C-alpha cells in the first residue's frame, strides 16, 4: 500500500466515524438538488428561490427574529420525539400535546390575574407543560396497561385534541366580536420578552436541550432510559419497571412538547389560534430523525427547519413558488436520513444502523 492510499483510507475513516453528521448533511444537499429540479420545472431559477428563502430568514432583522421564533417550538417538539425514541416509544402525538398546551397557557395568561409578571409567566408555562404531559400520559397509560400501540393512540389523540380545541375556541373561550376563532390576547404580565432578535423562549429551549442531554447521558434516570431503549427484555430482567418507564417517558415527552406550545403562545403569538401551530409536531419527527435521537443535534436540525419555514413564507410573494415546497424538501430529507439507502451508498458495509422502535401491538 502506498502512502497516498493509506492517507485516503484515513480521511474516509473520519467520515465513517462521523456518519451521523455526514449522512444528514448529504441528505439535505440531495433534497435541495431534487427540490431545485421541482422549482425549475415551475419556471423559476432554484438559486433565486433558495436565496430568497435564506436572505429572508437570516439577513434581515425582522426575518432573523421570525426564524428564531419558528425554531423555538421546533427545538422542543424535536426534543419531545427524541426523548421518547430513546426508550423505544414513537411519539407521533407531539402535535396534539403542543396545541393543547398552547391553549392551556393562553388561558392561564388571560384568566389568571393579579400575579406579578415573572410569576405569571412561570405559572402559565407550567400550565402548558402539565397539560401537554397529561395529554401524552393518556397514550402512555394505554400503552403500559392496555398494550395499545402509541403510534395509533397518539394519532387519535391528535385528532381528538384538534376537535376539542376547535370547540373551546369557537364557543366558551372565543374572543368577543371577532370573526376569527381565537382567544383574547394574554395579559402583559404573561408575555415572554424578546432580547433584540433572540426571543427569551429560544434561550429557554436551548437550556432545556442541554438539561435533557445531561439527563440522558449523565444520570441514573438517563441510563435507565437508554437501557430500556436498547433492550426491553434485558431492562425488564434487570428490575426496571417497564410500565413506569413508559408512562414517565410519555409524561416527559409530552411535557417538552407542551413547553414548546406554551413558549409559542407566551412569547410569539400572545393568543391561541388553531392555525398558528399546525404541523409543528410533525416537523418534530423530521427533526428527531435528522438529529439521530441526539438531543443536542436537535438544535441545528430545528434551526434548519425553522429557517425553511420562516423563509418559505416569503417564497410565494417573491417567486410564486408555493410554500409547500418546504414540505417536499423536508420529506425528501427525512426519507434519505431514515432509510438506510444513503448511508449504504456512502459507506457500504460500514454503514451504521438507523433508529429502531418497532414493538408489536401487544407489548
Amino acid at each position: 500500500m502506498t502512502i497516498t492510499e493509506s492517507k485516503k483510507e484515513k480521511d474516509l475513516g473520519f467520515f465513517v466515524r462521523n456518519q451521523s453528521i455526514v449522512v444528514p448533511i448529504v441528505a439535505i444537499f440531495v433534497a435541495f438538488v431534487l427540490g431545485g429540479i421541482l422549482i425549475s420545472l415551475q419556471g423559476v431559477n432554484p438559486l433565486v428561490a433558495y436565496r430568497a428563502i435564506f436572505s429572508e430568514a437570516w439577513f434581515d432583522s425582522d426575518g432573523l427574529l421570525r426564524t428564531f421564533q419558528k425554531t423555538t417550538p421546533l427545538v422542543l417538539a424535536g426534543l419531545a420525539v427524541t426523548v421518547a425514541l430513546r426508550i423505544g416509544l414513537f411519539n407521533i402525538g407531539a402535535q396534539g400535546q403542543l396545541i393543547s398546551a398552547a391553549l392551556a397557557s393562553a388561558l392561564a395568561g388571560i384568566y389568571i390575574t393579579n400575579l406579578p409578571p415573572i410569576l405569571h409567566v412561570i405559572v402559565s408555562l407550567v400550565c402548558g407543560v402539565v397539560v401537554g404531559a397529561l395529554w401524552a400520559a393518556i397514550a402512555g397509560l394505554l400503552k403500559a396497561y392496555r398494550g395499545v400501540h402509541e403510534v395509533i393512540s397518539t394519532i387519535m389523540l391528535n385528532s381528538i385534541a384538534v376537535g376539542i380545541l376547535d370547540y373551546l375556541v369557537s364557543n366558551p373561550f372565543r374572543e368577543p366580536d371577532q370573526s376569527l376563532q381565537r382567544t383574547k390576547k394574554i395579559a402583559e404580565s404573561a408575555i415572554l420578552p424578546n432580547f433584540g432578535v433572540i426571543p427569551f423562549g429560544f434561550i429557554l429551549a436551548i437550556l432545556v436541550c442541554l438539561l435533557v442531554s445531561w439527563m440522558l447521558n449523565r444520570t441514573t434516570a438517563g441510563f435507565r432510559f437508554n437501557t430500556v431503549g436498547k433492550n426491553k427484555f434485558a431492562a425488564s430482567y434487570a428490575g426496571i419497571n417497564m410500565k413506569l418507564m413508559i408512562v414517565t417517558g410519555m409524561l416527559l415527552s409530552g411535557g417538552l412538547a407542551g413547553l414548546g406550545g406554551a413558549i409559542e403562545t407566551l412569547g410569539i403569538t400572545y393568543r391561541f389560534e388553531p392555525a398558528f401551530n399546525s404541523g409543528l409536531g410533525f416537523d418534530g419527527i423530521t427533526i428527531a430523525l435528522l438529529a439521530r435521537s441526539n438531543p443536542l443535534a436537535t438544535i441545528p436540525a430545528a434551526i434548519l427547519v425553522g429557517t425553511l419555514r420562516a423563509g418559505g413564507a416569503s417564497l410565494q410573494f417573491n417567486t410564486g413558488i408555493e410554500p409547500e415546497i418546504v414540505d417536499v424538501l423536508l420529506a425528501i430529507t427525512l426519507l434519505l436520513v431514515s432509510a438506510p439507502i444513503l448511508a449504504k451508498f456512502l459507506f457500504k458495509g460500514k454503514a451504521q444502523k438507523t433508529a429502531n422502535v418497532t414493538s408489536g401491538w401487544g407489548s
Partner: protein
Amino acid sequence: MLDFISDNKKSLITLGLVTVIAYVFYFLDEIRTTSVLVFGWGYAVPLVLAAMVGIIGERSGVVNIGIEGQMLMSAFAGFFGSVFTGSIYLGMIIGILTGVLMGAFLAVAAVKWEMDQIIAGVVINIVAAGLTSFFYAQGKTLPELMPVVSIPLLSDIPLIGPVFFRNGLFALSTLFIVVAVNYALFKTRWGLRSRSVGEYPSAADAAGINVTRVRMMNVTLAGALAGCAGAFLALEAAGTFARGLTAGRGFLALAIMIFGAWNPMGALAAALFFGLSTAIASQLQADEVINIPQQFVNLLPFVMTLIVLSIAVGRVRPPAAAGQPYTKEG
C-alpha cells in the same frame, strides 16, 4: 361454504344481528334507516379496504403504518389522473397503480432494506402529505361522475339492495374483495405461505419458502387495495381532492384490523360497527334528538378507536412475526 360459516361464526352472527335490527328499523322508518345505512356503508368502505391492506401485510409479517399515506397519494393521483386524462376510468386505474407503487415503496424499505417498519410507515405518511400538498392545484373538477351500477336482482332486495348493490364501482366491489381476501388467506396455497411467513419465518424458510419474496410481493400487491381506498375517497365519496383528504382513516383501519382479529370478515364487521355508529350519531344529531356540539360528534370515531383498542388488544393475538424484519442466517 360450511367451512366458511363455521370459521366466521362470530362475525356472521354480528352481521346477521345487525341485519335483523336494521330491518326492524326499516319497517318503522324506511327513509331514515336507508339513509343511515347508506351513510354507514359509505363510511365503512375505505376503512374495510384499508384494513385489508393492513391484514395482508401483517399476516405476512410486515406492519403497515403507512396506509394513510398510501391512500392519500392514490386519492391524489386518481383525482388528478381523471382530470388530466378526462376519464374517470383511467383515473381509477392510475389511483390503483399509485397504490401499488406506494406498496412497493414500503416493501423495499421495510423488507429489502430492513428499515424499521414503524418509522418507514410514518415516513411514507409525511412524504405523501408533503408531495400532495405541494402539487395540489385548486379549482379542478372531475370530468364525469362515478357511474352508479345496480346488480340485477340483488339490488331489488329492500334495504340491502340499494345500500350494498347499487353503488359506484369501488363500493360495489368491496364486499367481493373482502370475501376474496378471506378465501385467499385461508384456503389457498398463497394464503398458507403468507401466513407461515408472518407467523414463523424461519420455519417457512426451512420449508423452502422465499420469505423476502413473499413479503415483498404481498406488501406491494396490498398497495392496490390502498389505491382502491384512496381512489374511492377522491372519485366516489368526495368527488374531489383536498389536502389531507384521508383524515386519519388509514389509522382507523389499523384499529379495525386489530378489532377484527386480523381476519377479513372480522374487519368487515368492525368497520360496519364504526360506520353505523357514526351514521347513527349524525342522524340523531340531525334530528335534534341529541344536542352535542358538532365537533364532538366528529370525534366519535377517534374516541371509539381508543376504546376499542384498549379492549381488543391483548384479547386477540397478532401474527407472531409482525413487525420483525427477517434476515436469513448463514
